[in-house]
């Protein structure tokens, strides 16, 4: 019962245009049966100040992270969450959020761990919707509870653990944090809180490509040609590469994962969600400081 794909010309350039919708498409399809719109923001209250009519909220901290173990929720919790939001296994889910869809991409990546098939991002996110003067409401959506099956998470395809990264040297790594975090001047994004890493720097051989370089000024993704220029020509990624992206806690790198996998068509891309808060505190893992990528450690 999936919704039709957005046939906008800009999207058609991407490897998987079915993973994005434009604001025009969403405005036209709001309220359609089989479609649920999800808002996922950094600020947990932003949704309450006004959201796209009918949209439900999923919060990365409260809904997607396990409250005890540093991990994502399990199959039962995910099923309960989605069922409570009116999302069935065959529902088309369109996710949007603040800050260039930073957290929306993170939510989409978690949906992917559970193999939810039809999940898309709203190109331009919350900011573009508002900038275009489109409708927002504070009215709570009418949600019909549905049954979502308990599906166990499968982390293998799109999630990397620390040991996977240690075994990955020789293959491309992309560090999507700010230049200051990459070089080791600091362990957090400028103006972000300290989230506890004991060392500053980057994983040896990782290329520095701050995540927001993939976003245009209006918050939409840059065009296919612009993205190819960054990730293929400048960084040197090539078809067939096995790629791992990381940041500080795995959210910014979800955005880059989306770009590499869905927009540019790299088939093997994993997000290392332990990221710098794990790597930068782990005992005896190699790190590099300064602007150079550094050498892969000898095995």
């Amino acid at each position: 019962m999936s919704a039709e794909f957005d046939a906008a010309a800009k999207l058609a350039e991407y490897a998987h245009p079915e993973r994005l919708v434009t604001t025009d498409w969403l405005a036209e399809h709001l309220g359609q049966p089989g479609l649920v719109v999800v808002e996922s923001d950094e600020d947990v209250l932003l949704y309450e100040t006004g959201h796209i009519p009918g949209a439900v909220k999923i919060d990365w901290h409260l809904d997607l992270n396990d409250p005890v173990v540093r991990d994502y929720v399990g199959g039962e919790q995910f099923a309960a969450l989605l069922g409570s939001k009116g999302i069935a296994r065959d529902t088309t889910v369109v996710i949007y959020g603040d800050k260039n869809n930073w957290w929306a991409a993170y939510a989409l990546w978690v949906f992917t761990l559970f193999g939810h098939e039809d999940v898309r991002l709203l190109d331009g996110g919350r900011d573009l919707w508002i900038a275009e003067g489109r409708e927002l409401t504070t009215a709570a959506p009418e949600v019909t509870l549905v049954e979502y099956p308990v599906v166990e998470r499968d982390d293998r395809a799109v999630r990397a653990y620390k040991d996977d990264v240690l075994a990955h040297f020789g293959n491309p790594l992309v560090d999507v944090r700010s230049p200051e975090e990459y070089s080791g001047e600091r362990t957090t994004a400028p103006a972000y809180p300290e989230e506890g890493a004991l060392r500053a720097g980057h994983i040896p051989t990782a290329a520095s490509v701050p995540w927001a370089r993939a976003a245009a000024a209006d918050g939409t993704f840059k065009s296919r040609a612009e993205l190819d220029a960054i990730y293929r020509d400048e960084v040197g990624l090539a078809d067939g590469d096995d790629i791992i992206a990381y940041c500080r806690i795995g959210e910014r790198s979800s955005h880059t994962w989306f770009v590499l996998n869905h927009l540019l068509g790299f088939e093997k891309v994993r997000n290392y969600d332990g990221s710098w808060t794990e790597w930068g505190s782990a005992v005896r893992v190699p790190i590099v400081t300064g602007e150079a990528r550094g050498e892969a450690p000898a095995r």
Partner: protein
Amino acid sequence: MNATTLPARLAETREDFLALGVRDRLQLLLEFSNELPELPERYADHPDLFERVEECQSPVFIFVEVADGRVHLYATAPAESPTTRGFASILVQGLDGLTADEVLDVPADYPQSLGLGAAVSPLRVRGMTGMLGRIKRQVRERIAV
């Protein structure tokens, strides 16, 4: 920490939050967010006076003034950051008009006692703790002069 050592307004805020279920605590925080006062005109054009709270993910700036023994607290944060605005508003409403000693005596873990951990996550509450710490430091600086 107990209610007798906590300034009345902060104690009342805490009771209000704790009397609510988790979902309603979010709504109350949103009300606080909407109540954050605009900066008085004399400070509106003086971003240089304000200190950025680094512990908050969203930009929030605070400025403390001590006049005639009373603390006055000003804070500004963008509308797109309602959680941060809510935290600032709780502190502005709870601390403004107190004496310097009363502000300095507020327990550092007051933000953790509001029951917001389950509503907005402990990590986010940390931003409010940072805000309170910076407010106290500014108070100390002002009364030391």
